[in-house]
C-alpha cells in the first residue's frame, strides 16, 4: 500500500518561522519516505538540537530528538544494534559541524549504512542567530553584533577527509532535487551525507532564498540566475567510484570533488559529489568477526528462556577461568 504524504506527517503545529528553509527539507524528506521501498515501521529518524531538530515531531515515523551535537552516535548505536532499521539522521550545521564535529568525522571512519542530512543555514537558529561553522569569515548576518571572526569549514571536504562514501549537497527549496538526492542517499550502501543549503530568513540575511535564487543578478531577459547548479546535469560529472576503477582514476575523481567543494558564491554546485562503492560497511566488518551478526543482531537475540534463565552457557564460558 503506497504511502501518502499525509501518512508521514503528524498533526502537530509546526513552529518554524514563516519562510524557513526547514519547511522545504521537511517536505522533501517526507516525500522521499513515501517513495522509498522500505517498510515505514522500520524507519527511524534521529535529529539534533536546533530548529531543525523539531523535524522528527512533525514527521510520522519513529522519531528520536537527541542532544545537541550527539545525533550521530545515538543514530549509529541504534543502527548497529538493529541493522534492519532504516536510520536517517537529521542535524543542523551548528549541531553537526560545530559541537558535533568530532562525531561527524568519526562516523565517516565507520561507514555505517545510514543517511545523514544536515540543515546548513550558516547560523545557530534556535539560540538566536550566532554564526555557525559554515558562515564565512568577516560575514555579518543581521544577528551578529560584529563580523564573524572564524573561517568557514568546508563540509564536503571534511566528509571526504573523514571517509564518507556518499557526499552530496542540495538546496532546501529545490524539493525535487533534494528529494531525489535523499532517496539516492538512502539507497547508498554506507554512510551518506546530504548537506542541504537552507535559508534562515530570520537570522541569515546573506544567504537568503533570493540570494540562492540569484534575484540579485539577472540575465538579459531579467530572469534571476540561480546560484546553485546541478553538477551531474550541468557538467555530466559522474560521482561514482566503483570497485573496478584504477587508483589513478579514483585519485582524479577525488581531486575533482575537492575542486568542486571549493566553489561558492556565484556558482554553487549541488548534487552528488562522491559515491564510493569500494568501501565495506561497518556492518560487513562486524559480520567478519561475528558470523551471525546479520541474522542475530543484538536487538534480535533471545536473552532468557521462559523461566527467565539466561540463554548463555555459563559453564562453557567460564571454563577458561576454572582451575581444578
Amino acid at each position: 500500500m503506497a504511502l501518502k504524504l499525509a501518512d508521514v506527517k503528524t498533526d502537530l503545529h509546526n513552529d518554524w518561522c514563516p519562510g524557513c528553509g526547514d519547511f522545504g527539507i521537511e517536505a522533501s524528506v517526507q516525500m522521499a519516505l513515501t517513495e522509498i521501498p522500505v517498510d515505514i515501521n522500520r524507519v527511524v529518524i534521529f535529529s539534533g538540537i536546533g530548529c531543525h531538530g523539531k523535524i522528527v515531531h512533525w514527521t510520522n515515523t519513529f522519531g528520536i530528538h537527541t542532544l545537541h551535537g550527539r545525533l550521530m552516535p545515538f543514530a549509529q548505536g541504534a543502527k548497529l544494534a538493529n541493522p534492519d532499521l532504516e536510520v536517517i539522521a537529521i542535524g543542523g550545521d551548528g549541531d553537526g559541524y560545530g559541537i558535533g564535529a568530532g562525531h561527524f568525522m568519526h562516523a565517516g571512519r565507520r561507514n555505517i549504512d545510514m543517511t545523514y542530512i544536515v540543515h546548513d543555514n550558516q547560523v545557530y537558529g534556535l539560540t538566536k542567530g550566532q554564526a555557525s561553522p559554515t558562515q564565512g569569515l568577516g560575514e555579518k548576518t543581521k544577528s551578529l553584533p560584529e563580523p564573524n571572526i572564524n573561517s568557514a569549514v568546508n563540509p564536503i571536504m571534511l566528509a571526504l577527509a573523514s571517509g564518507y562514501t556518499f557526499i552530496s549537497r542540495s538546496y532546501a527549496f529545490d524539493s525535487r532535487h533534494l528529494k531525489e538526492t535523499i532517496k539516492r542517499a538512502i539507497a547508498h550502501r554506507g554512510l551518506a551525507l546530504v548537506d542541504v543549503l537552507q535559508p534562515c530568513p530570520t537570522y541569515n540575511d546573506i544567504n537568503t532564498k533570493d540570494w540562492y535564487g540569484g534575484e540579485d543578478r539577472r540575465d538579459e531577459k531579467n530572469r534571476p540566475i540561480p546560484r546553485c547548479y546541478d553538477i551531474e546535469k550541468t557538467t555530466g560529472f559522474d560521482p561514482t567510484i566503483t570497485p573496478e576503477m584504477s587508483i589513478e582514476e579514483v585519485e582524479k575523481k577525488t581531486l575533482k570533488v575537492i575542486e568542486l567543494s571549493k566553489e561558492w558564491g556565484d556558482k554553487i554546485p549541488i548534487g552528488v559529489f562522491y559515491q564510493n562503492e569500494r568501501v565495506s560497511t561497518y556492518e560487513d566488518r562486524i559480520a567478519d568477526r561475528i558470523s551471525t551478526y546479520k541474522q542475530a543482531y543484538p536487538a534480535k537475540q533471545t536473552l532468557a528462556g521462559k523461566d527467565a534463565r539466561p540463554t548463555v552457557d555459563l559453564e562453557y564460558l567460564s571454563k577458561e577461568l576454572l582451575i581444578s
Partner: protein
Amino acid sequence: MSLISSRTNNLSWMIGGAQGSGVDSSANVFSRACVLAGLWVYGTREYYSNIKGLHSYFEVRVSDKQIRSKIDEVDLLTTFDAETLIRHAEAVRPGGGIIYNPSLVRSDIRKVDTLEDNIVEKITGRLVGQGFTPNVTGLLDEAKRRDIQLFPVAYDQVISQTAQKIGETQLSKVSRIINVLAVSASMAVLGLDVNYVERAVEAIFGAKKKVIEMNVIGAELVYNAIKSIAHPPFSAKLAPVENTKPRMFVAGNQAVAFGKLVGGCRMQTYYPITPASDESEFLESHENFKLLDGYSHDGQGSIVVVQTEDEIAAITMAIGASLTGTRASTSTSGPGFSLMVEGMGWAGMNEVPVVITLYSRGGPSTGLPTRNEQGDLQFALHASHGEFPRIVLSSGDMEECFYDAIKIFNYAEKYQCPAIHMVDKALANSNMTILPLSAERALIDRGKLILDGSNPQDGGTPYKRFKFTEDGISPRAVLGLKGYRFWNTGDEHSEIGHIDEDPENRIKMMTKRMTKLETAAREIPDSEKFNFFPASKSSADVTIVSWGSSKGAILEGMELLRRDGIDAEFLQLRLMSPFPTDSVKKTLSKSKLIIDIEQNYSGQLASLIAEKTQIEIVNKILKFNGRPISRDEIYDSVRSTVKAPQENERLVLVHGA
C-alpha cells in the same frame, strides 16, 4: 602483636619488577600454582601510569580457606631487580624472607632513577640512621638485623644454564624466564612442589611449547639449587590440600564481563581508559559465545563491542542501542564518566535503560589513573543537571561484581532509567579464587518491555511511550516495532513523546518519572540493597558502615577484632540510589558506636547517610593514598577507634607503597 597464628598455608607473598618485564606473569604463575595445589589466593596489583620501566608489584595472599583482602605484612618478598628490594624490604615482617639477585648487592639506591627523590631520601636516611650503608647491601644488613632470612638466587647463571640446555645461544631470548625462576625459587623456599609451578606454566603459556620448555627447565634448576643448600626451615609454608571442587580464578573486571554476557548485554561501547577498558577488551575477545542447548537456533550468541571516538559517543551510542530493545552498556572510569553525564540525563528524561559500569580510580581529574579510590559516589548520585531517577549499585567483591552486572540490567529495564554499577579499581584489578559462578541465581527480568508487535495498538488509541501510570512505569516498546510508533526528546514531553511546555503536564511528567524511584525502593528487596553482617553477641560493640572493595578487608578485620574481644557488626551499603533509608536508620539508631570506613577523603557515604537518615557518623576511617585498604589496617584502626573514639574521630590510613 602478630596477627597470624599459623603460617602454613596462610601467608603473603610479594613480587615486583619493572612494568613490561613480565612481573604480572610471575604473579599469575605463582597464584595458579597455589590454586592447583588446592589453596585459595587473593592477589592485588600496583602499577604506575606507565607502559614500560616504572615499578609494579603484586601481593598474593595464600590460604587454605577463601580469603578476600590484602594484609600489611609480607612473609616472602621475591625480587630480581634492585628496585623491588629497595622499595619493599621494609614491608617484610621480622622472621620473613627475601629472595634477591646477589649480583645487585652493590646497587646504589641513588642511582635507581625510577625511584622518586623523596623515596630515595627516606630509605637512605633510614639506613644511614641505623648505621648501614645506603645501598642494597645495607638494606640486606638491615633485613638480617630484623631476622629476615635471605635467599640469594643467581638468576643469570640459571638463565645461561637453561639456554645451554635448550641450545639457545642468544641469552636475551631466554632471559624472560626470570619471572618463572623467581616463582620457582619462592616455592622452593615455601616448600611447595615445583610440579605445581610447571603445571601453572603450561596452563598459562598454552601452545607455546618452546616457552614452556625453557621455563620448566629453569624452574627446576632454581628449585633444586635452593633445595640443595641447607637453610634453617622457613617460617612460612605452603602444602597442597585436597580440594576436588573446581574453583575460578578471576579478576573483578572479568567477573563483570561474565555478568554482562550472562545478563544479556549485547552491545558494549567504550573509549579506552584505565582501569575500565580491560573489561571491554575481555568482552571483545569473547564476542562470540555458546548458548545453552535449546537456544542455539540462532547459532551462537554474540555481543557487539564498539570502541567509540570518546565517552560522549560511548554513552549516547549505548542509549541508541538500548532504544532498539538491546541490553546495552558502557564502561568507564572517572574522567570518562564526567563526559557521560549529559547523555545520561537524556536517558533519564527519556526513560531509557542504559547501564554504565563505573570503575573508580584515584581522582580528581586524571588523578592517579592506576590507583584505587572511592571518590565518585556523590558524583554518581548527582551527575547531570536537573532531576531524574537513577539506580546506583555498588559491588564489594568478585561475586557481587558478577551478579550485580546482571541485576543492574534488570533494574535498568524494570525502572527504565540509567543504572550505574560501581566497581573500584581494587576489585577490577585484583584476582581471587572463588567458587564457580552460577547462572541459577541469575534471572532476567525485562520489566514492562513490549517486544512483540503482533498486537499493535495502531487502530485504537495511539501508543503512549510515557503513559501516566500508578507506579510511574510505562509499557516500553522498541524502535521498529510495528504499531508502537513513538517519539523521544530531551525536552519535557507529552505522553506520546512530543515536546510539551505546559506547566500541568510538566508536574505530572516529573512526578511520573520520580515516582519510579519510589517504586524501585519499594520493590527491590533489602537483601539486594545492603548486606548486614551481625556481631556474634546480640549487641555489637561497634557498627562498621562501608561500601565497595573495603568489604573483604572489613570482614577479615572483624575476625581479628573478635579475638581481641571487640565484637563488630558491619553494614555494607550496596544500593545507593534509591537509598534504603528506613533500614539504615533502624540499624544505625541502635548502634553504640558507628564507624564509617571509606576509601576517599571526605567520607562520601557518611554524607549520604547523614542526608538520608540525619544520623551523623562522627568516627571515620579514611584512606585516599591510592592503595587499597588492608585487613590489618581495619583491625588496627577500628581497634584504636573503639578504644578512644573521641581521640580518633578521623583516622587516615597510610599503608601501601
